[in-house]
């Protein structure tokens, strides 16, 4: 990661609750204007990390630095780290405009100014005309945008997002992803986005941080992580990968399903024999599941035409190969 003047730096940050360690020592730099996604399975510590950044939890050890200033003792309400909540946390007793103005009101901005700025943001997010509505009169997507406007109206350097799209229907998710990406580019501010969804993280982020069991497993651009997972955990969590024993002891080989070739006859000596188990429709392609010689599960992604040509039946023997450059070595 670039060392020049990160906006946020986590240095050796840990968080424990009694004997339970939620975050076990993370080091992370987040740059200005970056869209960073923190991704991992539930319980990996990603939300705790975000909450520590917002000041809602205090780190048990380590420092969190924001814009050069160590924030450990700064209470939540004195930080400039607006958060878009998973439940959105819109105030039900305030209307749309009042919700959006809230942060400005807390800072003592004059009524006229906050009114104007709130209206500007509502218009920007396509909510013109909604300012006097009550929250329960809005749809899920509209509420999302109110939550966004509320967090952005104070023009912060950074926006935190805690699984904001998890409650939306699938088609809305796609649309909101577009809204978020565009917004981030236009504003040029840092987005720190926590999610358990691969597709969200990979679609929007400049860099992805994979967390597992309280630790950072890998940081990198989406493509890097997808094509070159560093550990077994990442390989199993991200994408569809086959993990095979390596040539040397202490090594394993990762071959992505879409790089795995299936043939009816043995093409070369290195090919793996496998019995066909089942197929899974994945939209534009099909995932085929096989059982290898040692009982391990193998997967290969094929097109419709390839599937038709193979015409597999359960128990039928096939051969799996991959190009040498398609495999990737990880240390166990």
């Amino acid at each position, binding site marked *: 990661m670039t060392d020049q003047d990160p906006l946020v730096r986590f240095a050796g940050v840990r968080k424990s609750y009694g004997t339970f360690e939620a975050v076990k020592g993370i080091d992370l730099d987040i740059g200005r204007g970056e869209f960073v996604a923190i991704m991992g399975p539930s319980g990996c510590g990603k939300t705790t990390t975000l909450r520590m950044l917002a*000041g*809602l939890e205090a780190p048990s050890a380590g420092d969190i630095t924001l814009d050069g200033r160590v924030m450990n003792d700064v209470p939540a*309400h004195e930080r400039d*780290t*607006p958060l878009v909540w998973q439940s959105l946390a819109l*105030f039900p*007793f305030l209307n749309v405009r009042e919700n959006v103005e809230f942060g400005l009101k807390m800072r003592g901005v004059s009524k006229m100014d906050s009114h104007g700025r709130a209206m500007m943001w509502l218009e920007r997010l396509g909510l013109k005309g909604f300012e006097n509505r009550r929250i329960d009169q809005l749809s899920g997507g509209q509420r999302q945008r109110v939550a966004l406007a*509320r967090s952005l109206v104070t023009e912060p350097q950074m926006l935190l997002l805690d699984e904001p799209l998890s409650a939306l229907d699938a088609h809305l998710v796609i649309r909101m992803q577009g809204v978020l990406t565009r917004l981030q580019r236009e504003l040029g501010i840092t987005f720190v986005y926590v999610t358990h969804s691969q597709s969200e993280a990979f679609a929007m982020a400049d860099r992805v941080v994979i967390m597992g069991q309280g630790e950072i497993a890998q940081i990198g651009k989406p493509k890097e992580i997808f094509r070159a997972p560093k550990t077994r955990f990442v390989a199993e969590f991200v994408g569809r990968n086959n993990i095979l024993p390596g040539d040397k002891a202490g090594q394993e080989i990762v071959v992505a399903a879409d790089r795995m070739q299936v043939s009816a006859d043995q093409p070369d000596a290195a090919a793996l024999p496998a019995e066909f188990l089942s197929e899974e429709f994945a939209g534009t392609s099909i995932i085929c599941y096989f059982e290898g010689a040692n009982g391990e599960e193998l997967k290969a992604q094929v097109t419709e035409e390839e599937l038709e040509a193979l015409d597999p039946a359960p128990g039928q023997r096939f051969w799996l190969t991959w190009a040498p450059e398609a495999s990737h070595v990880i240390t166990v």
Partner: protein
Amino acid sequence: MKPSDLVFRVYLAAIFVFVFAPIVTSMIFSFNSDRFPTVPLGSFTTHWYQTAFSRPEVWTAFGNSLIIAVCAAALSTSLGFVTAYTDFRYGFRFKTAYLALALLPPTIPLVIMGLAMLAWLRQLGLSGTLTGIVIAHTVMGAPFAMAICRLRLQQMDSALEAAAWNLGASPWRAMRVVVIPFCLPALISAYCLTAAVSFDEFLVAWFVSGLNKTVPVMILEILQGNVDPQINAIGTVVFLTSMVLVIIAQLLILRKTAR
């Protein structure tokens, strides 16, 4: 409708008749011209109301009851809210004991509370004063206020407070600007309910009051005399007051649960 359903409905109706009969008959007889309540009824009259409410001691008693109820309800509601918020937001050692302390008063028989309060307030020099009764009623009403506020807090997205902090509100400000507005229906509901409890409560007030009589105490003393239909009149007014308060209290808390 099954035949057994009919039986059940008749039974339910009978129960409601039993529960409300004393109230309804009291109201009917308060307008009845006969001195002794019998069937068939006499003629309609407001004579008993006029007589009862021409007595200065009745007005004084009502005045006392009102002052006490207003003050005790305010204190009960505050205490109840504060305790409910503590329960909602914080976990701490001995929390179970803490909550038991908050919720125990209704389980102590009123005669005992009356005796204990009398002795204690006597030590503090507060026996026989309205303040003493206010204190006693606060202790008795606070658990109900706490239950109502706790119910409402349960409905609050726990992120709401944190969202307020996140947007720059200090904890105190967040309480003022987010939590209390959200809880407002519960606060009003708790106020009404504890006011009703105080308005009706007589045993402890009797022990503690000495000469400053509240309405129920006054009723008690009249009762110890003989049958007097003025009691029906007074009782009807008392009942209607508390009933209105309890109904308001329930409507407030029910409407919000729908949201």
